[in-house]
């Protein structure tokens, strides 16, 4: 995990702790798995297209 990611994780943890402390009501805890859908494949295709588009040489006279 990169330093940036660790910093973000720490910040997100702080967000949870601070907001939980400030909330008078008992939090509701749930587990939410990702949906089994086509989004990962879509993002992969999008990523490849974007990379190819960066190299494109469409002429603009």
């Amino acid at each position, binding site marked *: 995990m990169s330093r940036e990611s660790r910093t973000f994780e720490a*910040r997100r943890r702080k967000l949870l702790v601070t907001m939980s402390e400030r909330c008078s009501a008992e939090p509701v805890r749930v587990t939410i798995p990702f*949906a089994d859908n086509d989004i*990962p494949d879509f993002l992969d295709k999008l990523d490849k297209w974007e990379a190819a588009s*960066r190299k494109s040489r469409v002429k*603009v006279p």
Partner: protein
Amino acid sequence: MAKSRFARQAQGLSLEIFPIERPFSNFDFIRQRFPQVHTLRRIMSQVRQLGGRTMALEKLPESGDLREENDDIRTRDPAFRKSECWRLSFFWKRFRSERGLASARSDEFVGYAIIKDDEIPSKGRKVRIYESVLRPSRYPNNCIRGMQEWTCTVGGNQLSIGGYLYAQQNDFTNVCAHVALRAAAARFHPDGDMSYRQMNTIAGVDHRTRTVGDGMGLDTAEMLAILQAAGASCFPADYTVPPAQRPDVPFQKLIYGSIESGYPSIAVFATARGGGNHAIPIFGHTFNEDTWVPCAEMSYFRIGRDVAYIPSESWVSMYIAHDDNWGSNYCVPRGYLHLQMVCDRLPGGPTPCPLDPESVAFVVGTFPSNVRTGPVQAEVIGADYLFKMRPQMPKGAGVWAERLRLYADNNLLVLRPILLDGRDYVEHLSMVRDWSRRRVRARLVDALGGILTGKLWMVELSVPELFSANKRKVGEVLLRADVSPGRSRDLSSFVLARLPDYFALYSGGGPQTPRYQFLPSGASGHVELFGCEDTAAT
């Protein structure tokens, strides 16, 4: 006197003042003074529309930017000698003397246009609008974000004007790609403007071994390099790639993601047969709350079998753009720009239709340099989180939990991606109120204040009637914008979500079984969209 860097800030060599209310004729003035500049008719017609009352006309000395362009013209044509320049400045204020001009304020300044007249022996006489900034029209449905402030000196009086810079090409040292880039790059460049020489240096145009004009220009890879050098992060989409080799992403989503967040986009499209490609900067849109488009099936954005929703850009009616051939601040109908139709009746299988050449070839959305997630990725990842969280909302989430289920079952949820700073979100949350005028708990908003930093994507969740008529939403998800999303679902970009009545915060559990805590937010049901605070119907 020290030479000004920019023509807009140069001290004029002469000054004429014109009252331009009726019976003053813009057509007569242009015919008498600048008959070659047909785009000036568009500029002055906007001034008329805006209610301009007085015009100051100044002849300009050779400022730093003009000299740079003149030197480049001379590099290409050493016989080039004569260049003249004028600045037209427009005011709401009525005045007839230098004294009246000296006391004019920025809020009385409508805008300006600089006209450059070059006699290039190998090209002929080229008179064009070198640059212009006008206030945009005041129609309430026009939405232009991220306008820069341009500082001008008119008759010695320093004034500022907000807008996106319009410029025309000279087709000798710069072309349409350059002027579109200038409008966009200025939003990011540390100097507040990017010169054509800077662009040409990046692209390797030296006006000797490589020239531009007369059908020669830049290519899209060079355009991206120029935008990145200016300080932009670019999200390009090449629509000349055959449809089977790219995801089905409407180019409108890229444009909207940029302009709604306050950053310009550039569209490259093919013109009439044989005319080649043309580039225009797009920097705003009009919002039509009564449009039929979202009702049409084609406006659903679908990913596979399970994810379908209505993109908020379905309510865009027009794009606001400059076209260097015709003038500034035009409204381009959303449906007028389109992708090339594919013909499946030709031998060899589906192929671009030869009868439909005038189509979008390439689009680039721009964002600040530290943005790594694009608007399409953000919207899709946000949908992934929101659509999975929605059915898991705690009991007691109110009537909107059930309403959202009905809308979701019919693919009628609306998503709107917008890039913002953490502090913008905190300010937004501190302003919004639910339908019963309750605010999000101040203690919770304050807690966010010191923790949310940097650029974030906020994907807002709404339903059609609430979104279009009341400009309200039922929730949002915040995602980091400074990390590349990739395809893995590791929650590395999830910051928090807010659904009716609750915040949802990640509390661990890893990618396979992420755990969340739902905390009551204090606001129930729906609140205003970002940028629409306090404007909702009551």
